[in-house]
């Protein structure tokens, strides 16, 4: 996924009705891009065949 810009992140936040100040927007954009970067290597795993269940097991 390509790097998100502050404009894109600001537009997304506005669409959700979230008030984001200019100072917040810069850091939120870095945080969001950093999270996407960190999860990018997982795309190499065979995750499509795995159901996204929580994994903690049933309550017995």
């Amino acid at each position, binding site marked *: *996924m390509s*790097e998100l810009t502050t404009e894109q*992140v600001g537009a*997304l*936040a506005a669409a*959700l*009705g*979230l*008030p*984001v100040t200019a*100072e*917040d927007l810069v*850091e*939120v954009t*870095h*945080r*969001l*891009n*950093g*999270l*996407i*970067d*960190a*999860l990018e*290597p*997982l*795309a190499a*795993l065979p*995750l*499509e065949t*795995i*159901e*996204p*269940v*929580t*994994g*903690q*097991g049933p*309550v*017995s």
Partner: protein
Amino acid sequence: MTADVDLAFLSARRIAALVRERAVSPVEITRLYLDRIDRLDGELRAYITVVPEAALESARRAEAAVLRGEALGPLHGVPYAVKDQFDTAGVRTTSGSRLLEHHVPTEDATTISRLNGAGAILLGKLNLTEFALGGTQKFPFGQPRNPWNLDHDPGGSSSGSGIAVAAALCAASLGEDTGGSVRSPASFCGVVGLRPTWSRVSRHGSFPLSWSMDTPGPLGRTVEDVAWLLQAIAGYDPKDPLSSRAPVPEYAKGLDDGVRALRIGVIRELTSGPETDAEMKAAVLEAARCLERLGATIEEISLPLLPRAGAIFMALADSDGAGVHHRWLRTRAAEYDQGTRRRLLTASLIPAAIQQRAARARALLGTQLREALAGHDLLLCPTAHQAAPPIAAGRGVITSRHEVAGRFFTRRSYVTPAALAGLPAIAVPCGFTCAGLPLSLQLIGRHFDEATVLRAAHTYESQFDWSRRRPPGAA
């Protein structure tokens, strides 16, 4: 004074025994902790709210019960404190936020009812990172400080729960662990902290972060104390439909049975990986050798996905948290601490494809951990990649996407695997750095097998005096 300090640092179980033997009065021990809070907490900031009148009233009732020869609960007369995330009837419950500064619940959380029912005496409500999220830049109710070095981080989110136990500002405490929030402060403050199996302990009356990971958990100066607190709070609660009906065993019963015949897997990526500090690595590997000398079989195992656990956790738990806070984020955003607000805003914007990828990776990670535990009774690794860092290290704005992993994901990858998989895990002191900061060993067990986790931790703990050391300035 020396005798008073010695009394304050006794284990909760020892205090309960002295109360039962009428060697110590509940009023005397409660006053002792209240005096210590008064004297030491201005600097440590473990507490948000102290309830001296209510505590002394409970203590007087406890004393009367002893003198009447009534049947006493297992924690009768033991003064404890609780993370300010748990509801307490008539006592304000802030979740560490200005948004709830004046919130006074009308009902106790189930965990509080159960601890009080076991005879414990509530001293007050403990400091935490705002809404148990972590990353708070300016604590609304005072900066919590590590008693081993006041310039260092006490860990979070149950910061006060770790500080108060380490500095003997209570006999034991209750925290809440979504992604390490009991084990991290236990690790940084040099005490014992247990994350029980998810669903083992009721979440009713605790402010939520992530429904599938939130777990109340005890902290104490000894493993035995933690076992007894778990005994008091574990079990099905009709007020929490996701709490388990599985029978609750007697956790303290087998504590002295040793580790002979236990198979323990040392997780290579977290113990010897490049992110693990040399002093932490050396202490944890020495702990593994100690358990081997005591009869356990130690094998190194590889779980390559675990270093990604911190990012997987934040994609999922933070999204849950963003859902919890969505209304307030839209209407009261400025009232949040800057760090909390930016974390929740980020989580609100995570693309669905990324969240799905994280959810599938969580399932894979859970499967891998369960497979590892099929061949081993326990998994072993450090609780954190390093000892408590300076408070200043977690401060300041993020100025680049490249800073994010180092600030948020690395340390969480040590504590979030058990959280993502719903497994029980304990943090136990395993030494000190050259600078005098605590180091911590983590043991992860199978679902609902807290008994084995506690037994191995107790066996290890009994070989050393780590838990009897006292922080400077806490005398």
